């Protein structure tokens, strides 16, 4: 691993913190150094932030899109005669084919299901984006880590065994 001077700097700071009052010391550090020097891999700091920025953007975009579609579905449902019924509670599309077929006829439940499916996909898209971003940064360890998480998620889904 490449030796980064700021790692030692930071280690030195924390050993000091053991004896000194943390709150008093830290503002001094912040004043004396630019913030980016406080992160250990300062060379990676800017690219790390851009990864965060892109992922933040995807999360926001995904959430807004999913919420909008779900809202449209609910509105369609409210406009449908006899919209909210017990029958609709228990009969709804739950396979991709059903959802797709329902979307063609603009069935409210299918539109909602599309919004929900998008919501469910967001974490998977996030991890995929992280893997790509790490690969572009040539951060091999974290590319492998992100891809491993992705592989486990897919395995888990295919096996039909998951956690809460």
């Amino acid at each position, binding site marked *: 691993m490449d030796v980064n001077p700021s790692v030692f700097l930071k280690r030195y700071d924390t050993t000091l913190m053991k004896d000194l009052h943390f709150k008093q010391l830290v503002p001094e550090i912040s004043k004396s150094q630019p913030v980016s020097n406080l992160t250990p891999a300062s060379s990676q700091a800017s690219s790390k932030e851009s990864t965060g920025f892109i992922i933040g953007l995807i999360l926001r975009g995904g959430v807004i899109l999913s919420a909008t579609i779900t809202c449209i579905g609910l509105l369609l449902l409210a406009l449908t005669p006899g919209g909210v019924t017990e029958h609709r509670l228990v009969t709804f599309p739950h396979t991709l084919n059903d959802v797709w077929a329902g979307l063609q006829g603009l069935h409210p439940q299918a539109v909602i299901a599309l919004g929900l499916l998008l919501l469910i996909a967001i974490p998977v898209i996030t991890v995929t984006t992280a893997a790509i971003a790490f690969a572009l940064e040539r951060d091999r360890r974290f590319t492998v880590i992100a891809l491993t998480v992705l592989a486990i998620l897919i395995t888990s889904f295919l096996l039909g065994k998951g956690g*809460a």
Partner: protein
Amino acid sequence: MAHLSLVILLLIFGGAILAGIIGSLVGLGGGILLVPMLTLAFGLPIHYAIGTSIVAVIATSSGSAAAYVRDRLTNMRVGLFLEVATTIGAVSGAFLTGFLVPQLLFVIFGIVLLISVIPLVFKIGEELPKGVRNDRLANWLHLSGSYPDRHLGREVPYQVTHTPQGLGMMYIAGVLSGLLGIGSGVFKVLAMDTIMRLPLKVSTTTSNFMIGVTAAASAGIYFSRGDIPPLIAAPVALGVLAGAFAGSHLLARLSNKTLRLIFLPIMAIIAVQMVLRGFGLTI
């Protein structure tokens, strides 16, 4: 479900907002609130309630992570790394169902959680962890970082310790969620706060990011099984998203001390809930 109407959907929406706020603050999915609400108050069959609450977990996670990742509160590296253990744990836990007695596990881990409340009581006045130094694994993976604390008005640098133990705890958290079908957010926060000694805001927001990833696979499974009714899941998802959005803006302004005071009773409630479930009482 006696009378399903728009009024009921609105009430569910309101409850979901509350679940979203709490979940986004303390790093949990809000299932503790939603499942009893949907089953007890609205008489929804339990499988629908569980399917819907998994959607709520993802909504809490994505809704708040959108703000937390942007504000650099979430430590994505810590989250992704620990997620390896949690997801493997979840799959292996799901395979263990049928071999282990869930009642006994509920009691055991409920008690473990109750005991874990004690060290947290002593940490009540702690704003930031002191004297934490990166362990070797944390150094190798560049896990340490810093976050801008709106309450303290400055950038807070932090290091990460006991990474292997934290990873082990995350595996156990995953096993429990796969085995018992419970959200593992509280165990995730505990592992990051107590074992790895991350600042509490970083722990809850990183847990928030993680719970969505863990839940994604099972959400897909529940959906294809037909356990996610759109009629119920839609107001829940929208309510939770709105709540998570509000909560994420609130968290930035809270102190870690206040956040701890919110987390502690919620954790105690979950612990008691687990023990009771072990004795056959679902609350």
